[in-house]
């Protein structure tokens, strides 16, 4: 277990070092997310009531589309270094590769969300601070679910020529429970949770995250086989 975490840490260290040097992932994600949010703001006009009602949904649209960009890049550095399958040459459990890449994607998305949530509050005129604790939990669970399944599919498609096309095709259907749960919980929380439904969405998200994590960890060793 310790070795698994140590190796996952090595993958994470290497990927974060690469990202801090190139800043390609975060820059691309930020510009894309900003574009999505601004387009929605202009499209829906200045109706404050409407904007605050749809803010939760639009926020997650921005996170999912932007996050897909990050996922596509997460195994790209391995391909440039000769191929993700070469990571199999290292001894130990290959799940360390998955865990390291998953942690990298979660951190990258968390960095993006640190900017996206306040931007949404300003552009869509919603109050975040009174619900900060619940929103942080929802953001964490949503990001974890998205990254868990996304990292898996990114590894699965990295060797394919049509990976840019296949990744969203495989990912989006599998993401439906994560997106519905995240949007439901965010919308209810931002509205003050008058009907007490946010808890149900959070439980759905937690259950789906656990199932996804167990299944992906179980199948991952086969994904990197040649």
């Amino acid at each position, binding site marked *: 277990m310790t070795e698994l975490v*140590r190796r996952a840490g*090595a*993958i994470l260290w*290497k990927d974060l070092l690469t990202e801090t040097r190139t800043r390609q992932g975060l820059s691309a994600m930020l510009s894309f997310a900003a574009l999505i949010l601004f387009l929605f703001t202009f499209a829906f006009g200045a109706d404050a009531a409407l904007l605050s009602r749809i803010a939760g949904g639009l926020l997650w649209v921005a996170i999912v589309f932007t996050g897909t960009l990050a996922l596509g890049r997460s195994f790209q*550095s391995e391909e440039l270094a000769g*191929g993700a*399958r070469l990571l199999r040459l290292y*001894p130990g459990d290959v799940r360390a590769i998955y865990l390291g890449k998953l942690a990298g994607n979660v951190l990258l998305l968390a960095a993006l969300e640190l900017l996206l949530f306040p931007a949404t509050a300003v552009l869509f005129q919603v109050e975040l601070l009174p619900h900060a604790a619940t929103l942080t939990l929802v953001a964490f669970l949503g990001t974890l679910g998205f990254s868990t399944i996304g990292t898996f599919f990114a590894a699965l498609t990295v060797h394919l020529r049509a990976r840019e096309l296949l990744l969203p095709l495989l990912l989006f259907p599998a993401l439906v429970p994560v997106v519905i749960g995240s949007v439901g919980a965010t919308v209810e929380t931002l509205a003050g949770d008058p009907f007490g439904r946010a808890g149900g969405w959070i439980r759905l998200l937690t259950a789906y995250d656990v199932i996804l994590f167990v299944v992906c960890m179980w199948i991952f060793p086969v994904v990197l086989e*040649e």
Partner: protein
Amino acid sequence: MKTALRVEGLTRRFGRRWALRGIDLEVEAGSVVALLGSNGTGKTTLLRVLSTLLRPTAGTVEVLGCALPDGGAPVRERAAFMTSEGHLYEELTGRENLRFTARMHGLTVERERVSAALAEVGLEDAADTTVRAYSTGMRKRLELARIGLRPVELVLLDEPFASLDDDGVAIVQRSIAGWKGRGATVIVASHRVAQASRCANRLVRLVRGVVGEDAPS
């Protein structure tokens, strides 16, 4: 005689194309074998099977006493494989690439160990330069330094002399002699007969996926 690897009736197919058509090979521990043959004769495929990267389609493969593909884990700990395309991260420095390799092998990352491995291949001055700025020869030397980080019993080298000048070739040959001196078995796949046979004590020529010729160097 201790056997480092034993291969019997090894075949490997990619779709409808047979890359290996029945390889029989036994290699004595501590020897240096040059695996020769022109492009497409199955050298790389054979090395990828021996390194545990590829599963054989049929046949028996035993490496360092472990039957593959099931016994791959101990082989990965005791063997090293240098691919022809390399496995280096461009945005990391030479030193950082070695630190990453050491961590993935579960080694304690000591600065001295990394520096010694870099110095052995003459890269101490470029240790803190990103690999993006390395020449082909420097990349090959860094690959050799990665292997030098830990004790290994089997070294698999795929086209180690490609794109190297005379100094680079000498460094590769010196590294091979070093591993041999420490008792490791070395398999060098190359289509450069003169350079590969100079450091080998056995020549094995592959022809269309089978052993066509097997002779002492």
